[in-house]
């Protein structure tokens, strides 16, 4: 399978990327690691006229302590998120989940920002950012703005990014000492999760993100509300599927996905409660 022909531009700064996006508009796509986009291009489900390669922008590859949060550059590879000592200490859910993305080869190329900007509800990291109540930094011709992860995913493979904006940074609140869990069911390492659950905390303010339970990455809002009202972990998990609209496919019916959401949320909350420290 070979992608349709396109023009290729490699840029050496975020400003140059924004300028190229401004010039080409909807005809252009940013290329980071390419591990979401290139498969779609090989299937000709995506046929951008122009690819703007930001993969070499080292300025967007970093993990930094930023006081109350950890700032992760959008072009930080999954492998670098996985082995970050800072994230292991301050946001272990994100570091762990990055190590569950695809397989080692995928993690050597794929980036956190590329995965988030793709907006696939079957991806692992959007659910993690929802559970962690992360904030995304977008930069465009008019400057920078921040968007809560919860408001970023607007439709199937659609996000709050304007055609001339670049996702530059992911900000995850520090969560050292807070229990967490990431549960994912898939058949092979390379497969998307049939369902996944990311969980931060297990008390009244717990955050729970769901993988592959609708057309966009979702929070388990009913389960979160139940916990906020003092429900037991089991009772909260029992409503984890409420408000979701999962698809049926070769791997699972919608009913089975709802069942998995309940079971995996219970496991996640139980593990999260058990891993609480201090």
């Amino acid at each position, binding site marked *: *399978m*070979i*992608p*349709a*022909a*396109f*023009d*290729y531009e*490699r840029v050496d700064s975020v400003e140059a990327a924004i300028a190229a996006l401004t010039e080409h508009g909807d005809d252009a796509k940013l*290329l980071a690691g*390419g*591990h979401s986009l*290139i*498969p779609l*291009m*090989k299937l000709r489900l995506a046929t951008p006229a122009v*690819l703007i*390669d930001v*993969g070499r922008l080292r300025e967007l590859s970093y993990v930094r302590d930023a006081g109350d949060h950890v700032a992760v550059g959008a072009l930080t590879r999954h*492998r670098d998120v996985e082995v970050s000592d800072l994230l292991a200490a301050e946001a272990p859910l994100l570091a762990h989940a990055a190590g569950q993305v*695809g*397989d*080692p*080869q*995928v993690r*050597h*190329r794929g980036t956190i920002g590329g995965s988030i900007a793709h907006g696939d509800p079957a991806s692992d990291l959007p659910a993690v950012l929802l559970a962690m109540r992360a904030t995304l930094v977008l930069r465009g011709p008019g400057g920078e703005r921040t968007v809560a992860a919860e408001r970023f995913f607007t439709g199937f493979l659609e996000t709050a990014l304007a055609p001339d904006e670049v996702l530059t940074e992911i900000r995850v609140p520090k969560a050292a000492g807070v229990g967490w869990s990431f549960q994912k069911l898939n058949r*092979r*390492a*390379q497969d998307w999760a049939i369902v996944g659950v990311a969980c931060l905390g297990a008390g009244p303010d717990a955050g729970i993100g769901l993988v592959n339970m609708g057309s966009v990455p979702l929070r388990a809002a009913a389960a979160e509300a139940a916990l906020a009202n003092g429900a037991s972990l089991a009772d909260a998990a029992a409503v984890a599927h409420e408000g979701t609209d999962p698809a049926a496919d070769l791997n699972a019916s919608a009913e089975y996905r709802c069942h998995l959401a309940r079971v995996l949320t219970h496991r996640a909350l139980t593990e999260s409660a058990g891993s609480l420290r201090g």
Partner: protein
Amino acid sequence: MQLTITVNGASHTDDVEPRTLLVHHLRDGVGLTGTNVGCDTSSCGACTVLVDGESVKSCTVLAVQVDGQSITTIEGLATEAGMHPVQAAFQEHHGLQCGYCTPGMVLAAVSLLAEQPDPTEQDVREGIEGNLCRCTGYHNIVKAVLAAAAGGGTS
């Protein structure tokens, strides 16, 4: 566009279409056919090569993305002194049958051992999770990788 990459230590400059996948450039442009195309969907790992020492699936990388970088294919592992220790361990422990997955499997193992020189069996099984083998059932492959690690087989 013009592309210059180093493959197994030798520099190659070629004109490539931007849509050329790295695996096709290695096979059809550079002429090294040891890198196999298996599933062509970044699932099976048969096309695994090293880019600056790290394993990648070359069916899911555009050749232009690695302009200026150093690629190692299966042809680049052995030296005049003999096989690479991971290759020798695959032979010794019968880590292959039909051989189709083997180039990718060996390179995935080389990358794993560079990151984890002293892996547990679980580490090895997880480290090669991106590579599918339909013959051996993985058991002898895991034995081979562990043997290579025990022999210090990372270089």
